[in-house]
């Protein structure tokens, strides 16, 4: 037993937590402004500038907002779809729908992001549809980023919610109707409360994936910056690994807080 567990525990300990630890350590070093060399001197400078420089505060706040909006949009879209899949559709239709939900996950992330770039372009479908109403495409920016991310992460919300609703026994629906509740009341008093932990479970995916994303923003975000970009730019162009590491700890801290809150709803049993 111990032997069997050793390799995975080693993997978890060295590769997984080790990398995280290295990240934290790196974030406490600094970069020499002239040579660009990393100086292995302990300092909290990186975190200080994160908290004091306005740009970073704005970007952090923006990233959290986008993550929150994407999560809410996905939850609102996913719930009726999952409910239909779990309790209305026939077994055959259910299987087809699960495949339909999974299908986008098989396509390349980049292809999907570029597809949305096309959608939002000046002569794309959105502009074409909006034109008769005297409107134009919102173009690349925060809105397009939010829509694209909501699209990309929707399956990660649908699947846990679907599993959560499917676990609600049919007899509870019948008991609710039997006691005089119409469909709406049953939804509000039985289905949503019982599916709530599953929704929180799905939101862990949508929230964390959005917070870490930098590609979609690059493709449809125009000049918009999110935390992911800051990390990417700092370790890429600027090669300031310590600062990039410091930025990267923000999503980690936020997610730890999020997980702690989610745990109280019992959502972690739904993953």
């Amino acid at each position, binding site marked *: 037993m111990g032997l069997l567990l050793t390799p995975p525990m080693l993997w978890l300990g060295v590769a997984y937590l080790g990398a995280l630890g290295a990240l934290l350590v790196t974030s406490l070093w600094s970069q020499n402004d002239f040579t660009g060399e990393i100086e292995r001197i302990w300092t909290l400078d990186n975190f200080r500038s994160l908290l004091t420089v306005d740009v970073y505060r704005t970007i952090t706040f923006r990233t959290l907002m986008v993550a929150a909006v994407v999560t809410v949009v996905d939850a609102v879209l996913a719930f009726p779809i999952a409910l239909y899949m779990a309790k209305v559709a026939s077994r055959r239709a259910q299987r087809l729908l699960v495949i339909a939900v999974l299908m986008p996950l098989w396509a390349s992330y980049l292809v999907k992001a570029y597809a949305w770039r096309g959608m939002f372009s000046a002569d794309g479908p959105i502009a074409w549809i909006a034109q008769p109403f005297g409107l134009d495409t919102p173009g690349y920016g925060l809105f397009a980023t939010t829509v694209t991310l909501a699209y990309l992460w929707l399956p990660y919300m649908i699947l846990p919610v679907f599993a959560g609703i499917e676990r609600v026994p049919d*007899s*509870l629906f019948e008991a609710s109707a039997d006691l005089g509740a119409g469909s709406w009341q049953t939804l509000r008093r039985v289905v949503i409360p019982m599916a709530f932990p599953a929704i929180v479970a799905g939101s862990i995916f949508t929230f964390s994936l959005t917070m870490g994303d930098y590609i979609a923003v690059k493709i449809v975000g125009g000049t918009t910056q999110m935390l992911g970009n800051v990390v990417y730019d700092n370790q890429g162009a600027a090669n300031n690994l310590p600062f990039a590491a410091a930025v990267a700890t923000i999503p980690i801290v936020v997610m730890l807080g999020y997980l702690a809150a989610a745990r109280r709803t019992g959502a972690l049993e739904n993953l």
Partner: protein
Amino acid sequence: MAETAISLRGLSKHFGTVRAVDDLDLDIADGEFFSMLGPSGSGKTTVLRLIAGFEEPTGGTITLGDEDVTDRPAFARDVNTVFQDYAIFPHMSVLENVEYGLRVKKVGRAERRKRAEEALETVRLGEYGARRPHQLSGGQRQRVALARALVNRPKVLLLDEPLGALDLKLRREMQIELKAIQREVGITFVFVTHDQEEALTMSDRIAVFNEGRIEQLAAPVELYERPASAFVAGFVGTSNLIAGEAARQVVGQEGAFVIRPEKVRLEAAAPAPSSEVCVAPGVVREVVYLGALTSTVVALDAGPTVTVTHPNTDTTIDAALERRDQRVVLTWRREHLVSLGSPDPATSPEEETA
């Protein structure tokens, strides 16, 4: 008879080629404890689900009181169900579960609370309101389901094998409590079970189902003493079937007859012949000790095997066991024989304990 609570006319439910309920006519009186008894798959649950509104009938009508509810959805029917698996909402406390029906009907908070607590009191769970369902035993859950239904004061309560999951002792207790509650609140109970003893002890009337139809509808005593068919005789209690050649020899008549084991006497020698008594010699094949009773299986010379039971009063079990392989004479009063008319061998169950 009192007013009619439920009236089913020509009610059918087909699932593909399966006729789960087949052209059923049935009237259940107000305040009656009505049981549906029958083997697995005979359509009892389907009848209940049709009355509750969870299934749409293939044909026929359902009337509750004097309203035709055939086309009404479940939530608009004045009946409540105690589900076989209890269907208690796991995310609500016991009290919230019981309040549910009142809450969706917008009954005020104070009144709701009061009635829910009363209902919990009725099922002797007054102290358990704050508990979560998973903290309850099976019997307690069953009583929560009962309270949740009773609190709405429905005209009719439908119970689908509510005691099925309980152990024997708790089952006996709950049978007595259920009956007492029914007397107390005076609502019509439609009770599904496949335990014939349960049906016999609790019901005002019993319908025995077989393949989507009612084989016999009668009060318990009549059902037991005057079964209308070999199926009913076999399903309700133990019965001995005497038919064909054996009937000619032992009863002296054509036809099929049923005699209950407790009505048969075991004697060492044939008594003086009499027109009131049937006499049938045979050999003891098996003696089974059942606690309060001893059951003796006798192979008659005339052919059939007959089970005889008698209370363990004075004779010791050793004496009974010594009779194995001995020749004996069975006697019973002719008036205890139940004639089934012409026998239908296809449906005659073997001597069967349901």
